[in-house]
């Protein structure tokens, strides 16, 4: 087996208050250690803000600003401009947000930063809902998933944020998963070397929100990747799609069975989700073949 390949320099501290077994904290560990100490960050209200922590403590060794929900990318832009004005343009500006703060209320600010190609590294921890407020739907919630605000199952599609970002022609977009920490680290490392707006979306199976066992977040993320529900890929300059694998994904059944939020599904519902995953996969293959 391949050993996990990144170095923990202690940039993320123990004692944070993420739920036991939280994949978001796990991903934070990789991201903060890969970004390194020459960085400042903004974090929008979300689980990740809770993980960075309440006053008077912080779990990060780099300074963070706890910003507002709709303005993470704008705040990051302001930081980068201040650093540039101060002659510290080599400092990475890291922006951490959830899917609510990215797909929904923060999309306008993110779109604007992306359009200006602000030199920021934007990480969206995508747990497919407003999990920090107890689990309500966001525009990232997949079809049929039960949330606090969709008790009979969500009736809309998950927004395709990647294609929205690709349409902005930002230099780098990637998807990543806590089930592949080396890949996540490699993508953050790569993003650091690119000037302009970098967006990495990390799938975060939420233990209470998705109904996943305390020790199963990584497994669930792995199933999401392997089933093609959340394929790992990169998009460069909005046009060059590079898939981590072009092997046919596994059926989604094992992924669905792992989670309480899909427990109510009929066979027809499950097949509809499978069909949707298949269609998305075909589209990805087509996009990847396009270059």
């Amino acid at each position: 087996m391949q050993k996990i390949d990144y170095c923990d320099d202690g940039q993320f501290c123990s004692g944070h208050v993420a739920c036991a077994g939280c994949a978001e904290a796990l991903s934070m560990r990789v991201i903060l250690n890969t970004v390194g100490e020459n960085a400042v960050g903004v974090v929008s209200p979300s689980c990740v803000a809770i993980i960075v922590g309440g006053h008077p403590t912080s779990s990060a060794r780099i300074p963070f600003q706890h910003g507002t929900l709709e303005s993470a990318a704008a705040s990051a832009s302001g930081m980068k401009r201040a650093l540039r004005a101060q002659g510290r343009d080599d400092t990475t500006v890291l922006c951490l947000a959830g899917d609510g703060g990215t797909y929904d209320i923060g999309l306008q600010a993110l779109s604007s930063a992306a359009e200006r190609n602000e030199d920021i590294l934007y990480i969206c921890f995508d747990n497919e809902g407003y999990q920090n407020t107890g689990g309500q739907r966001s525009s990232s919630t997949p079809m049929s998933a039960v949330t606090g605000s969709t008790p009979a199952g969500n009736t809309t599609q998950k927004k395709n944020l990647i294609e929205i970002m690709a349409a902005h022609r930002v230099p780098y977009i990637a998807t990543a998963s806590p089930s592949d920490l080396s890949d996540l680290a490699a993508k953050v490392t790569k993003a650091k070397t690119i000037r302009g707006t970098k967006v990495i979306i990390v799938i975060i199976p939420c233990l209470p929100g998705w109904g996943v066992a305390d020790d199963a977040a990584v497994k669930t993320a792995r199933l999401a990747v392997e089933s093609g529900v959340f394929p790992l890929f990169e998009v460069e300059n909005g046009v060059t799609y590079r898939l981590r694998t072009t092997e046919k994904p596994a059926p989604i059944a094992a992924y669905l069975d792992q989670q309480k939020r899909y427990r109510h599904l009929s066979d027809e519902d499950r097949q509809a989700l499978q069909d949707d995953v298949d269609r998305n996969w075909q589209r990805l293959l087509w996009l990847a073949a396009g270059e």
Partner: protein
Amino acid sequence: MNAPLKNRNLKLLNGNHAVAWGVRLAAPDVAPLYPITPQTPILEKLIEFQSQDLFDAELLTPESEHSAMASAISASALGARVFTATSSQGLLLMHELLHYAAGARVPIVMFNVNRTPAAPWGFWPDQIDSLAQRDTGWVQLYCENPQDSLDTVIQAFRIAETTELPVMVNHDAFWVSHSVEPVDLPAADLVQSFLPRVKRSVQMELGTGRALSAPADQASWNLSRRDMDVAMHKVPGLIDAAGREWGDLTGRVSAPVETDRCDDAEIVFVTMGSMAGTAREAVNRLRDTGIRAGLVKVRLFRPLPVAELRDVLAGVPGALVLDRNYSPGTGGVLHQELKSALFGINEAPNLFGLLTGVGGINVPVETLVSLAQEYRGADPVSDPVWVE
């Protein structure tokens, strides 16, 4: 303005361009700007300066005033000197972040051009946009004319950076923003020495791991407001000192509350912004007719300079408060503020709350003259009066 002419460098400028000149001289590091009528000429002039290498701030043109303020806050948190400008709807869109900026104690200077908010849509001078932000924790200053706007925006940086409070400077749409007057431009080195770069007590520093504005417990939140209260109390004195020092440098003295012929006045106008100019002319005419009129110009609205106002207005028989704003259900905001500021003093004036120019309607000098004549010696009226 009977100041001696010292090194005058007069230029014909409208109010917004005077602001842009002041900002250019103050040399902020970062300036996020979003266009809105009637603020846009500030933005345009700064971009023009930058295109001519006369202004080298990081200019950011995001998609909204909300993002402009968000980026202003973060830039300021890193220790940068930050300026932004807006008006009306834009200011209202920023509302959430106005609280945030003040709470985070980032010394941003913002220029707001007072304009009617929708609905209905309108583009007219009215101060309710900024007055509605009075509880956000921003210092608020109101300017009478382009020169005042230039001088005040420069002084605002000193107030902000000394107190670590954000400062909002306001002038009226069109009456000031687009009115051209001769403006004396101070020398760049003069402004530079007036605005030394001050290190913050705390700012975002690499390697510290210190986070700004992390979720706090009740006691910490409470303490944050007590700290602001302490800072707010210092503001009138600092503005007074800055106004005197600026006077020594330029011949133009300013203060939180400025008066004109109030010492023997039987009736005074109390107002803010461009209405002060109209009232000044009305005082001239009333004095010509033998009525001992005076003017109280409230330049600093937040924090309200209560001591100065009580000092000035004690013993004046009558005060006409001219509000170019309307707070539905109460009346003019300045009127309400004065009633509480003057409560309980000996020889308090009879206060008359006059809603003059709400929505930008024109208020001629004659109207003010006749109002003074009407209310001189009148019994107090508690309700506000709409002036035609």
